[in-house]
């Protein structure tokens, strides 16, 4: 059986969540591996959300916000843009591959783009295998 990664997606309400809904209304099919959590702005995405998702067994975390310049709250996405690379550097120190955390801009009219991103990320994570965090936790459980 092929490994099916679980992806937690944090999407801003105004652009990206609408874009994901648009994929639905347009009946654009994509991999059923993503589970979306809606936040008002990508700037609300506390780095601890990403860490918590990985700790709880996610194989990947997708963060989506409005395109730079289009943020509903003027400049929230610029904060996300700066936070995520910092977080990724920290996660790399813990042995978490860079590809597991992905930041993308998806507008309300980009249903197709959202679907493509999910498909691409699913494929990459399938190739990468289960998250080392999940494996370590599973290993711990066995040892205990």
């Amino acid at each position, binding site marked *: 059986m092929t490994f099916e990664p679980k992806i937690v997606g944090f999407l801003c309400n105004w652009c990206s969540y609408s874009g994901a809904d648009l994929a639905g209304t347009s009946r654009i099919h994509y991999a059923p591996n993503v589970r979306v959590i809606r936040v008002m702005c990508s700037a609300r995405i506390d780095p601890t959300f990403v860490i918590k998702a990985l700790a709880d067994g996610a194989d990947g975390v997708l963060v989506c916000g409005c395109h730079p310049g289009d943020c509903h*709250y003027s400049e929230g996405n610029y904060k996300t843009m700066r936070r995520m690379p910092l977080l990724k550097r920290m996660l790399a120190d813990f042995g978490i591959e860079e590809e597991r955390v992905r930041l993308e801009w998806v507008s309300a009219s980009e249903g197709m783009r959202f679907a493509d991103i999910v498909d691409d990320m699913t494929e990459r994570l399938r190739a990468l295998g289960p998250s080392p965090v999940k494996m370590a936790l599973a290993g711990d459980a066995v040892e205990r």
Partner: protein
Amino acid sequence: MPEPRTGVFICNCGTNIAKVVDCDAVAEAAAGMPGVVVARSYKYMCSNPGQEMIAQEIGDHDLERVVVAACSPRMHEPTFRRAVETAGLNPYLVEMANIREQCSWVHDDGARATEKAEDLVRAAVMRVAHHEPLERLSVDMCPNTLVIGGGIAGLTAALELAGAGKLVYLVERQPGLGGNVGRVDLTAPYLDSAPDILTDRITRVLEHPDITVMTNSEVVRLDGFVGNFTATLGVNCNDGPGEERRVDVGSVVVCTGYREFDASRATHLGYGKQPNVITSFEFEHMLRQGRIETKEGRLPQYVAIVHCVGSRSAEFHGYCSRVCCMTALKYAHEVKSALPGSYVSDVYVDMHAFGKGCEDFYRRSAEVKTLFLMYGKGEHPVVRRADPGDDCEMLITVDEQLSGETIELPADLIILMVGMEPREDAESVTRLVNISQDKDGWFIESHPKLDPVATTTDGVYIAGACQSPKDIPDSVAQARAAAARILGKIAKGKLEIDAMFAEIDQDRCSGCRVCNEICPYSAIEFDAAEHRSHVISALCKACGACVATCPSAAIKARHFTDEQIFAEIAGVLG
């Protein structure tokens, strides 16, 4: 603390959800989730019986929380909030799981879609346990409206709103008002004059004291939310440096219209190569000049009209542009009356005469001796130069469907009925006002049948051909509908908005002031005496940027708290 008593309601949405997701299995799984005391699957949760079922179960089981797994919360969250409110539950104690737009409509593997739906329901169940009752805020509704586009839809919307005594800012990119209707001569099917229709409206708009018309102008950005937008306009920016102007509006009507299909893309029709192959808009121009003639100034003996240029084809646009069939019949009338000795042929795929008065018009056109030739969808007529001995300038080869024969049709003037397509910069408009486009690029309405002029962004409306190809009556109807929706909101005076703002725990605040800088609305004040920051809730727009920034975890985003989101994360990961 025991889990709050939770009811889970799984909507089948007819078969929209149920044909992919096993709703009964999801209900069964939900019944075993923490705190769940009742879980039911039903055909239409948003219907009256569906809402009554929720209210009934709240009473029967003393429910403290409700989860509705159905469509997107952007669609029906207000519906279910009202439903639980009627049963005495605070509207913020309901949470939706989006198992339609983000599950059944995008997946075809039933087992995996069902598994995903269960994860989404579990997340909602675990999240809603942490919800707190909140009170809504009442804000003023600004009675001014921004109308983008000065075509027939924009002019109509502006007049309707100003007629009710409200201020309108009408922004038009071109130097003049009128849009595409301004390029037309007579209108089908009653042959009344487009300039007459327009001139009256344009004059009334320009003279109206409550309408500010800004031509050569564009909208640069739109900030705020329903009832309280601020629009930044580039006034006269299309013919010089222009100036920036800011206006406060409560609503926006997008009436940006369409552009015509570029006929040179349909290479087999010879547009751009044969001088006497022209587009419908070029023919309109000729009609307005009052003389139908070839480029060489001769009167054409054979006039051919080709339908569906760019429309209803696999190659270009799949949709029907709706106005071309009747416009083509109008041309047949106009050619016949101007040049009674000429031969007019109509090369079509199907004749779409759906509008009021259109079928009668079609019948009358057949009586004026127009030759109708049907070509197959997916095929195309080919235009070529006639041979030296022919009495015409060009020949059109048509595989005629009704006779089954290949016919060569003489022509001196060929009119291509070019379809409508979204404007080249439609996407930038969607980003400006935060609305969506469908696969063809048209703007998307809130509901295709029941909410045709609203969009998913509250306070932003669409009217006219920017939403899909449309004739004048339909564009006018939409513009008036949008105006009526806006006037309804203005009449109420106040808007209820979500009580979602940030709060700072004064005991945990270290007074570091990081949040003061991060807030895009300057909604956080620093109290120097107390050495603490606090949120001015009326200014806060609930983005949550400060919450994620605070190093002391002292800021709480109401309805998007850390606890709620952590529970949701744990929930989706089972």
